[in-house]
């Protein structure tokens, strides 16, 4: 019952005029960012974080969370009408959404996506409200070894479940962690990794410089280069009557997918670093597996739209759970939110619930409000969003570049960082072309300042004995899961080889 009281207070906080306006702008921007191919929630949050310094931290995070939320809804719009996912989180939505649109049922696909997103968001919000305070209470007992073990788990998730080239993923993680170490060694106070004695490196590499460089510049150039301006849209006629009949049909045929996506998405989202993309892909797979007639999937089944859409919304809320309670982001976007919280002077972690209840519960309350707003804005303005998708990228791209350069400067007010950001942008472009995943590096530069001190404190506690991470009751299991995840691709490789050897013998 206590939770209900806190939640009511939180909803009231998020209903304050400034917050409600920010939520409305946030979800609308998010819908647009999500719908625009080449822009996802992570790009939007990274590029727009610097301009949130205008409002108090509590409102700033509500705004950014609303963008995150809106983007999960928006991704479906371009997946269905363009056939290209608006964001990586909506890749699975194209599998059935595009065939539906091509057979003239774009409206059914869009309505199913919106309603499934809403249900996924609602289920995950309730789960979040129940689990967050519990997890925060448990996490209060965590010491340096437990926190370091969790960091290890976050990186291990990328290696084990990321699906990218393993050496490249590990390299990306290490690069981000080393960049985080530039500046001063916090423990001894000695300057460290000041490249070529350039004084600009003394204040370290701000995570935003890397995040904007990667997502605002590198990915943008990559998008411009790879799409080559060839995008065609499918018309979608919408009417109020059509929305009602479509939502009935969508729910009748897609309820199972929605249910699977809502729950599975949430739990995949909680896993450190996994986030909404694997959540939606896995939910699509499971929904297909459990369907009465799996062969209908991929040809335009509403269940195939509902499952990934419910899952990506659910996972985006799930990803906030470890961010708020443990101080460990559940996705690349929440990694940037976490970095923002540090800039705003808030220490992420379990103590936030006791020290800043208004902030935490205001944010949780805003999830419910954002979810309702996103549904309404989405359904009401689908034709407008489709119209905006025709906007030439040559108008949007320079605006994004200008925002990136100004944002990169505003974060530290040093031209050195703007140049560094451009360098990261070019580097990211080439690495992206060669299949190097870059999200792990961004996550790592945010987590580096937490991971390093906890490792060093843990080793000091144990006088240099690394078994401390295995013998403590909470840290032990987490470390072992992390190691299994890191070794998972290796097991798969060996199993695959043995199977192949088996078939050749037979």
């Amino acid at each position, binding site marked *: 019952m206590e939770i209900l009281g806190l939640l009511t207070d939180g909803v009231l906080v998020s209903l304050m005029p400034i917050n409600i306006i920010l939520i409305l702008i946030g979800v609308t921007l998010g819908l647009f960012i999500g719908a625009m191919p080449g822009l996802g929630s992570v790009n939007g949050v990274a590029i727009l974080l610097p301009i949130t310094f205008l409002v108090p931290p509590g409102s700033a995070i509500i705004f950014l969370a609303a963008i995150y939320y809106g983007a999960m809804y928006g991704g479906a719009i371009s997946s269905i009408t363009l056939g290209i996912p608006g964001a990586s989180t909506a890749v699975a939505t194209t599998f059935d959404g595009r065939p539906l649109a091509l057979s003239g049922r774009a409206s059914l696909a869009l309505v199913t996506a919106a309603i499934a997103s809403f249900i996924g968001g609602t289920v995950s919000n309730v789960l979040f409200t129940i689990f967050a305070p519990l997890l925060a209470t448990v996490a209060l007992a965590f010491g340096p070894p437990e926190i370091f073990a969790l960091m290890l788990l976050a990186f291990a998730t990328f290696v084990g479940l990321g699906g990218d080239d393993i050496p490249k993923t590990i390299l990306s993680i290490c690069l981000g962690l080393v960049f985080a170490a530039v500046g001063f060694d916090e423990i001894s106070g000695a300057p460290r990794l000041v490249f070529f004695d350039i004084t600009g490196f003394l204040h370290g590499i701000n995570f935003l410089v890397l995040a904007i460089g990667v997502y605002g510049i590198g990915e943008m150039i990559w998008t411009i280069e790879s799409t080559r301006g060839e995008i065609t849209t499918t018309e979608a006629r919408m009417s109020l009557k059509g929305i009602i009949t479509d939502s009935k049909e969508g729910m009748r045929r897609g309820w199972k997918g929605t249910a699977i996506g809502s729950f599975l998405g949430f739990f995949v989202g909680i896993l450190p670093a996994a986030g909404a993309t694997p959540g939606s892909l896995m939910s699509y797979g499971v929904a297909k597996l459990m369907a009465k007639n799996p062969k209908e999937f991929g040809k335009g089944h509403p269940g195939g739209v509902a499952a990934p859409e419910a899952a990506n919304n659910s996972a985006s809320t799930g990803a906030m759970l470890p961010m708020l309670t443990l101080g460990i982001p559940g996705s690349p976007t929440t990694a940037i939110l976490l970095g923002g919280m540090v800039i705003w002077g808030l220490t992420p972690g379990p103590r936030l619930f006791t020290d800043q209840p208004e902030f935490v519960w205001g944010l949780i309350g805003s999830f419910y409000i954002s979810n309702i707003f996103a549904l309404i804005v989405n359904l009401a303005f689908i034709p407008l969003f489709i119209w905006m998708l025709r906007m030439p990228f040559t*108008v949007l791209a320079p605006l994004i570049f200008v925002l990136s350069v100004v944002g990169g400067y505003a974060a530290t007010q040093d031209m050195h960082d703007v140049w560094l950001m451009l360098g990261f942008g070019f580097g990211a472009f080439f690495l992206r072309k060669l299949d190097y995943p870059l999200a792990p590096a961004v996550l790592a530069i945010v987590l580096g300042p937490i991971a390093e001190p906890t490792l060093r404190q843990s080793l000091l506690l144990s006088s240099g004995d690394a078994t401390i991470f295995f013998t403590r009751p909470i840290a032990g299991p987490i470390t072992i899961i992390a190691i299994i995840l890191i070794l998972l691709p290796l097991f798969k490789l060996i199993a695959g080889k043995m199977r192949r050897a088996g078939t050749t013998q037979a």
Partner: protein
Amino acid sequence: MRLAEIVTAGVLALLSIYLMWKSTELNVGYIPDEGPGGGFWPFWLSGIMLICTGLIAFNWFRRTSPPSQSTDVLLDGYGKRTLVLVGGGLLGFIALINIISMYGAMVVFLIYYLRFLGRHSWTLTAILSISIPVVFFIFFEALMRITLPKGMKFTEPFYNFLNTIIY
């Protein structure tokens, strides 16, 4: 792609070695009663990076990673042109900031991008490349009180005049 893959791995290997060497400026081992030294963390991480570049090179040799099998060039004519025009535009934008101020550079960059890369009409170009810097100016200087670079001295009278409006 195949050539780019091994060259990039080589560059990253050199970077790892440089980072390892740079880390040794601080103690990279365990100091009794003090815990691991300041160079410990970056040194060993760079070491792992070096191993990873080795594995990437090994995969390149065995042709198991997609870029090492690809016969496409890393950048074809279109790609090179895009990179030079867009990347060069950004480079010019940032270089101009210290000369004609952030806002002046923004105007030049927007005109360049909208008119010459986007081939939009002069009307649209003019509307956007004037309104965007104005919105940024109001947002940053007036609302957030964050001053963006004003460039060299000759822009001073102009900004002094604008400041009398917003303050």
